C-alpha cells in the first residue's frame, strides 16, 4: 500500500518503493554503514548489495498514517555499532519527514554483518 494524502483539490500518492529508496539513500550517507544485506537469508549468508539493489535490503510497511521500516545493514568493523544504528535511525526518520513528509513510526535496524576493512 502506498502513502496517500487527499484534499479537496486532489490527491498525492507516494509508492512505498519511493519511500524505500529515499530511506536507503539516506542510510547510505551515514558513516559506518558499508552495505545493505539481502533479506533473503535462507542460506544464512548476508549478501552485500550494490547500490542498484539497495531496496532489497529494506522493507517498508505503510498503513493508514504511519510508515514502518526495516533495514538490514552491514557495518564496518571497529565502529560503535549501536551509535551507527542510532545515527541511521535518526537520519532516515529525519530525511523522510523532511523530503517526503511522512512520519516514521518505527525503524528496525538489523545488523546482518560486519565487514573487516581492507588492510592497507
Amino acid at each position: 500500500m502506498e502513502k496517500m494524502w487527499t484534499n479537496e483539490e486532489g490527491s498525492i500518492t507516494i509508492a512505498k518503493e519511493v519511500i524505500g529508496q529515499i530511506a536507503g539513500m539516506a542510510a547510505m550517507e551515514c558513516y559506518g554503514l558499508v552495505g545493505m544485506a539481502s533479506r533473503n537469508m535462507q542460506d544464512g549468508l548476508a549478501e552485500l548489495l550494490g547500490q542498484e539493489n539497495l531496496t532489497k535490503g529494506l522493507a517498508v510497511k505503510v498503513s493508514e498514517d504511519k510508515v514502518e521500516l526495516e533495514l538490514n545493514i552491514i557495518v564496518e568493523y571497529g565502529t560503535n555499532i549501536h551509535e551507527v544504528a542510532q545515527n541511521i535511525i535518526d537520519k532516515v526518520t529525519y530525511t523522510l519527514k523532511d523530503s517526503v513528509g511522512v512520519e516514521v513510526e518505527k525503524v528496525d535496524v538489523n545488523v546482518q554483518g560486519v565487514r573487516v576493512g581492507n588492510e592497507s
Partner: protein
Amino acid sequence: MVMKANEESKPQNQSNDSPKDQNPKQIDGSMLISMLRGAQWYLKESESHINSLNVFPVPDGDTGTNMYHTFKEAMNNLDGKSLSKVNQITSQIARGALMGARGNSGVILSQLLRGFSEANKENEILDVEQLAKSFRRAASVAYNGVMKPVEGTILTVASKAAEGAELSSENNLDIVNTLQNTLEFAKQALEKTPEQLPALKEAGVVDAGGKGYVIILEGMLRGLQDKDDIEFDEEILQKEVKPEKEKPEKEEELTYMYDTQLLIDIEDSSNNVLEKIREELNNYGDSLIVVGSESTVKVHVHTNHPGIVLEYALQQGSIKDIVVENMQLQADKKTEPNIKATEVSDIQKNKDKVKEIKPRGIIAVAQGEGFSTILQELGVDKIISGGNTNNPSTNDFVKAIKEIKAREIMLLPNNKNIVSSAEQAASLVDKKTAVLSTTSIPEAIASLMVFDEDIDLFELKDKMEKEIEDLKTIQITEAVKESKINGFEIKPGDIIGVYNDDILCCGENYVDVILEIFEKKYEGEELVTIYFGENTDREHALNIKESLKEYSVPEIEVYKGGQPIYSYIISLE
C-alpha cells in the same frame, strides 16, 4: 584563515630561534599525552565555533559537541592508568573513542583514532616516519567506513593532512615541523571544502567536521610546544583557563578585519555579472564568495575596506541585508552564530535577547503582535509565527532551539496541531528540551506565570501544566462557510463560539454569543481575560466587558492579542 600562496606545497623549514629540546625527533608516551590533552582542550575551546558551522539541518546534533564528547570519552579512558608507551596509549584512546562515539562526526573521529592506533601496534615511541604512517592509516581506515565517501568533508581533510606528514617525513623534518606541515595541509584542504560541497559554499562556511580535525591537529601541536608552560590537567580543562600565549584564533592571522556580506539587486544584468563582480572584489580582500543569479547576487568577502566594497556594490544596483562584522571581536568572543543571508534580519532582531547564555530559554508559537509582546514580556526568548492556518515545521523549531543560547529549552506550541512537531524537534536536538502541551495562547500565558529557573526542567513542565488544568479557553470567530455541526446550522457570517474544538454556540452578534457561552461555562472563575484580535478593536472589547457585568466576575482584563481569524480569545481561570 589566511594562507600564503608560497606555502602551498613546500614543507616549512625549522625556525631558527627555537631551543633544541623543543624540536624533538621522537615522541614518547608522555609527550603524546600532552599532545592529546592539548587537542582536547582546544577542541573544547572551539566547540561552539564548530557548532556554528553546521549548515545541514542534520538530526544528529552539533558537530563540535559530538566531536568533543567523543574525544573526551577517549581521553577519560586513560584515567587511572599509568601508560608510558605510545602503543598502550593509542589503543586505550581508540577504545575509549569507540565506546564514546557520538553522532556521525563522532563515529568518524573514532575511526580516525582507531586507524592511528592500528599503525602503532608495535611502537613504544613515535618517530616522524611512524607519525606520517599513523596519519595515513587514520585517513584510510576512516575512508573505509562509509559506502560513498564524500569529498569536502573531514575525510578529505584527514587524507590531505596525511600527505603533509608524509612529505615532511620524506624530507627528514623533526616532529614539530612535521606537525606544522600536517596542520598546514589540513588547513588548506579545509579551505577548499566549500569548492567541493555546494551547500557549504552557499552558506559561506567550511566543513564543520573538517574544522574539528584541524582543531585537533592544532591542539596536538600546541600541546607539544607548550607542554612545559601549561599543565593540561582536568582542573584546568574544566576551568577553561587559556594559556598565556596568543589566543588560538589570532593564530589564524587576521589579515582582513571585516567580514562583509550583502545582497545586490543588479540593475543592468549581463551574462557574466557574477564573474565581473568576483574579479573586481578580489582586489579588496579574501574568502570571497559571489553567488546568485543575474538579478540578485550575494557577496561575502573578508576585507579591510567594507566601505569600498559597498560603494562598488552600489554601482551594480541596489543593496540590502548588509552585514559587516569585526572578525577580531568575533574571534575573541568565538560564540557568534553563523549568520545566513536569509536569517540575518531575524538574528539581528533577536540578538539583544539571545546574546547571553542563560540556563533556560523559552520558545513559543504565536500569531498576532499583541500576543507576541505579551509573551516576550513574560520572558519568551523567541516567538515562532504560526497558529491554526500556518503550522510551523519541525525544522523551524530545531532552528529556533539552536539559535537560542540556553542550555535548556521550554517549548510552548500553543496549538494542538503543533504539539507533535514540537515534540519531534525536541527529540532531534542535543539540548535538554521540554514540550509543554499548551493548546492555546492563554494557556501559555497562565503557565508562564509559574516559570522558574531553579527547579528541574521536567518538574517545571509538570508544574506549568498543572497551572493550566483549570483554565478554560474560549475562541470566538466568524463562520466562513455554511455548515451543520453539533446540531447548529451555521450560515456564513454567523458568530461562533469554540470551546475545546467544539462549537459551543452560534448567533448573530458577539455580545449574545459571549453571554451564551458564559451561561454555559462560567463557574465563578476569578479572572476573565479578553484578548481582542486584529479584526476588532479595544472599544468593542470594552463593550463586551460591560455586558458581562451581571456575572459579577471579580476581575476582567482586556488586552490586545492581535491574532488573525479569532476576533476574541477569552480565558477563564
